[in-house]
């Protein structure tokens, strides 16, 4: 068994995670976590949809920000995809998508303030980088034959419209619709930094102990995502996209002086700003690296590795829930509901809830990341097992699971897991804003202390770390010859 490279790789990652556990801060620090958890579930089963009109407004804003952000990101991403052969464009896209939506929001908040533009750009910019990459991959897969049969002298635009777009249209539409779902989640969590979306409402309800209000919000969010095929129709899309900008809310006006100050003063490293020159830069950077960057990087990596393995375990446990090879339709439908809930809840919201209930440590983050990502991979793998035809006398139960199914789906399971490695790390860094000592914690503290120069360096480090893990993940997938499709 250990002669197989996929198994060896799995055990290496398992060992790294176990060593990481020795250093990780895993604990339940709340005085009465189970009572709080009980109260929370009581809130979910007794949702209060009518406590205030704020809920509906928050829901509307969430949808509006998602539509405007994804539409802008999609258009920009498409244009970038056309130039994706150029190395600077590829590097630019890799860089903007390595920075999480919440970090972009934190940056824009500093100079645009609570203007709708902050939320729109926070979604549009990283999404443009992701769209550019996926669109360019789709365009490259288009059949080259029609292009060769074209009359010589056909204009580039006509050739592109007739031979590339029709061939890629369905794939691009499917991916964009899928991204819109991701955009709804991104939009919801923007509320945690103060934009008027669902996250803001959730945080407000939680801090007042209004669990029934929070429960109502979560249920509405699931319904919103689960019914997307019903209300996101091609014919209605232009209406949504043109209408959405009018529902972003007023926000606060942009103070252009702040914008100018941000770029000319705030983000200039303190020693340069104070006229100490380059000589002062070394100690400043040294202090930043030792006291903030290094602990942040260490905690981010430890938490990422533990969460990655936990995600793998949850995925392998979860996929039988929706697989045709086990149980009856009732159990399978329940499984579908469970996995839809797990993957529709943004990890940030899950982590926030668990952190409120269990107190600060790495545990809520690990559980949140594993549940969300495990729900996504479990769903994809479970669906894949439904296409497998077993011989009529195949074993049942645990033997069917261990001997027939897992070996057949293990490679694609690993492919998805390594694909999500970079996503898990991006999320891990951002969960620092909730008070776990990953990079996001140090970014958030620097911003709280109005030290934007430090925050920018830390965000830059986070981006580089993500690009590094993305490269490593792709290297491992290539080495093990694993193929996958993009997920968010």
């Amino acid at each position, binding site marked *: 068994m250990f002669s197989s490279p996929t198994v060896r790789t799995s055990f290496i990652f398992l060992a790294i995670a176990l060593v990481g556990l020795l250093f990780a801060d895993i604990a339940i620090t709340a005085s009465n976590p189970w009572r709080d958890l009980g109260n929370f579930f009581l809130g979910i089963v007794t949702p209060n949809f009518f406590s205030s009109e704020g809920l509906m407004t928050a829901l509307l804003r969430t949808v509006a920000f998602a539509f405007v952000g994804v539409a802008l990101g999609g258009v920009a991403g498409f244009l970038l995809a056309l130039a994706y052969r150029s190395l600077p464009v590829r590097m630019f896209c890799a860089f903007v998508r390595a920075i999480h939506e919440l970090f972009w929001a934190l940056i824009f908040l500093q100079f645009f303030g609570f203007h709708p533009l902050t939320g729109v750009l926070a979604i549009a910019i990283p999404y443009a980088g992701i769209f550019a990459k996926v669109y360019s991959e789709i365009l490259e897969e288009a*059949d080259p*034959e*029609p*292009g*060769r*049969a*074209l*009359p*010589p*002298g*056909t*204009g580039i*635009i*006509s*050739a592109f*419209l*007739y*031979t590339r777009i*029709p*061939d890629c*249209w*369905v794939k691009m539409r499917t991916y964009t619709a899928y991204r819109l779902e991701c955009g709804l989640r991104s939009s919801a969590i923007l509320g945690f930094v103060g934009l008027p979306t669902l996250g803001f409402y959730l945080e407000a309800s939680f801090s007042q102990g209004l669990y029934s209000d929070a429960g109502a919000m979560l249920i509405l969010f699931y319904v919103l995502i689960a019914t997307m095929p019903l209300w996101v129709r091609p014919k209605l899309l232009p209406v949504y996209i043109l209408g959405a900008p009018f529902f972003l809310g007023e926000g606060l006006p942009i103070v252009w002086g702040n914008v100018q100050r941000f770029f000319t003063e705030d983000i200039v490293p303190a020693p340069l700003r104070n006229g100490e020159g380059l000589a002062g830069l070394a100690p400043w950077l040294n202090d930043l690296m030792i006291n903030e960057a290094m602990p942040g990087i260490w905690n981010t990596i430890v938490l990422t590795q533990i969460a990655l393995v936990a995600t793998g375990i949850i995925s392998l446990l979860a996929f039988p829930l929706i697989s045709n090879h086990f149980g009856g339709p009732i159990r399978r439908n329940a499984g579908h509901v469970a996995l839809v809930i797990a993957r529709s809840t943004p990890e940030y919201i899950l982590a926030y809830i668990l952190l409120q209930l269990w107190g600060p440590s790495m545990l809520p983050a690990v559980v949140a990341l594993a549940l969300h990502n495990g729900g996504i991979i479990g769903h994809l793998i479970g669906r894949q097992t439904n296409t497998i035809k077993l011989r009529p006398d195949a074993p049942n139960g645990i033997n069917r699971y261990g001997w027939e199914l897992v070996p057949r789906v293990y490679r694609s399971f690993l492919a998805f897991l390594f694909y999500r490695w970079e996503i898990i790390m991006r999320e891990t860094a951002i969960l620092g804003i909730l008070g776990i000592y990953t990079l996001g914690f140090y970014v958030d503290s620097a911003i709280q202390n109005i030290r934007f120069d430090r925050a920018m360096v830390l965000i830059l480090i986070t981006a580089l770390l993500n690009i590094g893990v993305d490269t490593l993940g792709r290297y491992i997938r290539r080495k093990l010859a694993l193929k996958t499709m993009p997920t968010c």
Partner: protein
Amino acid sequence: MSGFAFSGLTASFSGKRVIGPLSLQVNPGEKIALVGKSGAGKSTLIRLMHERVNRESSLIPQELGLVSALSVFHNVYMGQLDKHSTWYNTITLARPFAKDRAEVTTLLQSLGMTEKFWTPTASLSGGQRQRVAIARALYRKASILLADEPVSALDGPMANTVMTLLRDRFSTSIIALHDVDLALDYCTRIVGIQDGQIALDEPSANLVASDIMSLY
């Protein structure tokens, strides 16, 4: 118009010479059939000649080169993409003009497939797809035809209809064919290819089927 003199045609795949060096004089008004075993280099030769004559030719490649997601009309219209402005082409993609619709309809009528006008070519049968590629070449209205096995997926009567159309609509044509009888019936000159070289070059009037069979 003048004919074409192809000279020094060569092609290699992974270092191995598969065609030529080979020269061929094509006189105006000639209908040339390229015959020979599969793998003899007929398709490569058609491709090489297309690169040389380019603008003035209509091409029917063996892979057809259809855009599966586009309708029959649009695939046929693509034969004249270079004759219209980008704006005209873009509008046609969304809403074709009546003039073009009428012309393509007439063309498809002669090929016996009017009822499939707006069907995406992905859902057509092999023979129907081949006829769309033929219609595209006819719609292009070039004086020279370069075709690679254009009737391989068509039944007897339809193959004859199509060969007649191709003979009448193009003044000069070079067609790769594996069907020896079709070659003798519809072409004025037979060029046999063997191991990348011309092994036979005679007017069809001087040949019978058994003369060509020696190439196979």
